[in-house]
């Protein structure tokens, strides 16, 4: 295929995508002149180029579409659902032919379908959706005036075989229903449709259509302006994704080299600032390259208006789709990966979530169902939510179904919270039941959705309110290529555990190994806060040499709802790792999802917790998260993270702790008088530290906590433990003493999160009391 054709394909596909978006929008704004002009342009460009490249099939189809769109644009026809359906059918035809050109190089034989599509478009031109009276008259004038001045028109003038658009109009204006010159197909039925339950209108939130509307009436010739696309086209460039991957790879290499240089240069005082500079530039470069791979979610979202429209029409339910946060950006490969799960979720929402119109009316809801799709950034993730305002899921039916399928025990089912019951629909084997469609509402094929989302390191959740609807939440990492992981060691070898699966870590000293690890037949178990946690030994799993050292660490993992402890020799640092694919031969082992190169140049295999759990037969249903009753039982008590700072123990409320970071001292910078830490694009205010710093490369620990909407970091010397504290009553007072708790039988200060001032108020003197 030559370059010209390839370019034509790319451009046409983009044009058709724009056309599809435009058409579905047109339904809610049938008279929007600018929208019509844009759709017209898409088809017109295709027609122009095909004539030039010699694709007669495409040309004939595009020609028919252009005629109809010309009438719409000039305001002589008014868009109605039939016309939009016809144009969408044309779009599908065009897409099909483009695909055929892409795969076989030719557009294939023009068949009956082409003729049918063209005939349908021609029939629609004569339908009586004509704007009657004055509007039509004025548009005839404007057509005469506008057509020759439009640059788009100029472009095709030389080779256009199409008669002037005003030719068929004059007779038709008077006798709209008269058959055309071909006369061999039935004229379209009268346009005013029955109170149209099948129309799915699409409304984008205001933010997504920033372009000013053309203020003039229907006759305003819009095509005279410069197309809005041409401006963006000048400032953007198409880059081969392979090249981006290659750059990403090289940046990964640079990161490694940087790490080695930093290690080597730490002794040399003159070299250290250079090393830090290199460090910063590399970090920025990596971020910039990652950004280059990001695309707005609108690339995927844009196909859903059409999906909802078609589905709603075929089901006879009026459904409106609202899109929000379309500008949210996501890595291209991830965007591809969520396309199918989202399609499925939206299909489910329309098909099973939204009730039929009579049911909605009986429930006092508006006849038109609403599906809302929104995306936004949240803490290093992208959150995509699919809301519907349907009937919600029937919790009791799900519980009963799960019981019937043997997915949970009766006792377990009885004590599950509603939320827990809802998550059962993600279990494989749940949704294969035929009868589920009608009872669960949204539960169909959810295990597939979950598998797809978890494959890319994301999480799925479902939330439902009976009578008010269902929300499906997908939490997607920003990028696939780099994931946060914990490096662990087994028999002197490095392995990486993705942080997404990691729940907590337990260290066992050599004495504890003997007493705390218990066995039931061959199954090793550990009592984690009173509940049995099945243990797997990494060295045994991997057939490594038997262990010598007795002390070990347990990484408590939750993989697709399977909870288990992975026993490893020791823990190394958490690291952001660049995922490298493994050869098929090694992927087939199943335990590894990839490999990575660590900062010190060594390699580590990335463990696949889900596969490990599955191969070891770790069950799903009996290993659901700890029941909420645990929390209820210790009411009046709170869990705290016990840390040491400035030689004193201090407590941080555990529920506020987001994560714990080990960083070199040198990464702490100052904004004004406040110490801060830079994470990607975010600035984390830190607590003041009194410790004297001898070595700028020494590691320090930062506990990142959530304080309302913001996050703050506490610089601590060590993290000691997690313990529950008792509130203490001040002698003689009725209320408990704020600021202290009884932790391991010692009165411990609770660090107030508010002691770290917000950065805006950096000039204010720091609040006292954060340093014990």
């Amino acid at each position, binding site marked *: 295929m030559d370059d010209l054709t390839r370019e034509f394909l790319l451009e046409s596909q983009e044009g058709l995508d724009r056309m599809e978006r435009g058409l579905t929008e047109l339904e809610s704004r049938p008279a929007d002149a600018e929208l019509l002009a844009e759709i017209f342009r898409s088809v017109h460009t295709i027609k122009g180029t095909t004539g030039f490249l010699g694709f007669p099939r495409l040309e004939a189809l595009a020609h028919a579409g252009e005629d109809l769109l010309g009438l719409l644009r000039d305001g002589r026809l008014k868009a109605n659902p039939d016309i939009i359906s016809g144009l969408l059918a044309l779009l599908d035809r065009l897409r099909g032919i483009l695909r055929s050109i892409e795969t076989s190089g030719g557009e294939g034989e023009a068949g009956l379908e082409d003729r049918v599509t063209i005939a349908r478009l021609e029939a629609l031109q004569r339908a009586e959706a004509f704007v009657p009276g004055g509007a039509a008259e004025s548009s005839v004038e404007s057509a005469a005036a506008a057509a020759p001045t439009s640059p788009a028109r100029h472009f095709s003038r030389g080779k256009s075989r199409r008669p002037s658009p005003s030719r068929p109009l004059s007779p038709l204006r008077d006798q709209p229903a008269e058959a055309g010159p071909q006369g061999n197909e039935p004229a379209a039925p009268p346009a005013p449709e029955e109170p149209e339950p099948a129309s799915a209108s699409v409304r984008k939130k205001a933010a997504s259509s920033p372009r000013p509307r053309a203020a003039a009436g229907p006759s305003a010739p819009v095509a005279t302006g410069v197309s809005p696309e041409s401006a963006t086209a000048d400032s953007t460039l198409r880059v081969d994704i392979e090249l981006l991957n290659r750059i990403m790879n090289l940046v990964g*290499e640079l990161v490694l080299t940087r790490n080695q240089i930093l290690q080597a240069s730490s002794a040399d005082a003159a070299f250290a600032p250079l090393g830090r500079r290199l460090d910063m530039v590399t970090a920025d470069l990596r971020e910039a390259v990652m950004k280059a791979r990001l695309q707005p979610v609108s690339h995927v979202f844009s196909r859903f208006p059409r999906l909802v429209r078609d589905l709603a029409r075929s089901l006879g339910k009026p459904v409106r789709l609202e899109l929000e946060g379309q500008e949210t950006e996501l890595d291209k490969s991830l965007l591809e990966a969520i396309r199918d799960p989202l399609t499925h979720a939206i299909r489910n929402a329309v098909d099973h979530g939204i009730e039929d119109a009579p049911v909605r009316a009986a429930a006092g809801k508006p006849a038109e169902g609403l599906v809302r799709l929104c995306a936004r950034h949240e803490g290093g993730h992208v959150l995509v939510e699919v809301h519907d305002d349907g009937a919600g899921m029937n919790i009791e039916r799900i519980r009963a179904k799960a019981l019937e399928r043997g997915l949970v025990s009766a006792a377990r089912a009885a004590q599950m919270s509603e939320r827990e019951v809802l998550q059962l629909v993600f279990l494989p084997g749940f949704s294969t039941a035929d009868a589920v469609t009608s009872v669960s509402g949204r539960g169909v094929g959810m295990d597939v959705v979950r598998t797809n989302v978890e494959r890319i390191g994301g999480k799925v959740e479902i939330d439902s309110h009976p009578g008010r609807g269902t929300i499906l939440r997908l939490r997607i990492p920003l990028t696939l290529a780099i994931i946060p992981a914990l490096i662990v060691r087994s028999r002197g070898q490095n392995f990486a555990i993705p942080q997404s699966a990691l729940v907590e870590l337990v260290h066992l000293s050599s004495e504890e190994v003997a007493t705390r690890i218990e066995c039931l037949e061959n199954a090793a178990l550990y009592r984690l806060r009173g509940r049995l946690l099945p243990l797997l030994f990494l060295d045994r799993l991997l057939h490594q040499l038997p262990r010598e050292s007795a002390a070990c660490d347990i990484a408590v993992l939750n993989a697709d709802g399977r909870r288990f402890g992975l026993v490893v020799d020791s823990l190394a640092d958490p690291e952001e790792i660049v995922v490298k694919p493994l050869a098929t*031969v*090694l992927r087939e082992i199943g335990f*590894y999802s990839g490999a990575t190169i660590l900062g010190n140049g060594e390699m580590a295999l990335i463990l696949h917790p889900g596969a490990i759990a599955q191969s070891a037969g770790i069950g799903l249903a009996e290993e659901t998260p700890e029941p909420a009753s645990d929390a209820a039982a210790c009411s009046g008590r709170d869990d705290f993270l016990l840390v040491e700072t400035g030689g004193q123990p201090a407590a941080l409320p555990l529920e506020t702790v987001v994560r714990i970071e080990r960083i070199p001292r040198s990464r702490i910078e100052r904004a004004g008088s406040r110490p801060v830490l830079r994470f990607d694009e975010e600035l984390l205010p830190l607590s003041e530290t009194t410790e004297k710093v001898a070595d700028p490369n020494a590691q320090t620990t930062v506990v990142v906590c959530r304080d309302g909407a913001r996050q703050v970091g506490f610089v601590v010397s060590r993290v000691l433990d997690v313990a529950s504290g008792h509130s203490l009553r001040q002698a003689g007072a009725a209320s408990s003493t704020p600021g202290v708790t009884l932790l391991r039988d010692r009165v411990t200060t609770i660090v107030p999160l508010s002691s770290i001032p917000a950065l805006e108020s950096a000039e204010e003197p720091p609040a006292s009391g954060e340093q014990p």
Partner: protein
Amino acid sequence: MIAGTQESAQEVCSLRVGDTVFAVPIARILEILGKPFLQPVPLAPDFVGGLVHYRGEVLTGISLRRLLDMDPAPSPEDVLVFESPAGPFGLLVDSVGEVLSVSAAAYEPNPSTLDSCCQALFAGAWKLPDRLVAALDPERLDPLRLASAFADSRKGSHARSGG
């Protein structure tokens, strides 16, 4: 080089494993890595000697010693990088020798008496004046191909011990 022999001569790289000398056409070698760090892969098929870091990629290293049922190498090994349809892979050898110029006339396919394991790995041999050099064919060393060959020949005898 004499013009008349140019089309029939071929440059090959010699390499040594134990006492045996092999050769691979130079044109097939992407790169030679001198004694790189090898990351072992537990549970991998026998013929995998470890992972090799090559230009930002992690390659599967095929151990020629394991393929020939020899003892592990006493010292760090060199790695030759080859291209396969599924991406590059590495071949671990004791050491890389020199570049030899061999003529096409000196080449002969595998003798029928060669055992089946070597039949599968070698393409043939070059008859040098003083010795025979086995010709390795990177295509036959492609990990995917080895994996299916090994799965066939070793079915049932799951030779991997617990250690």
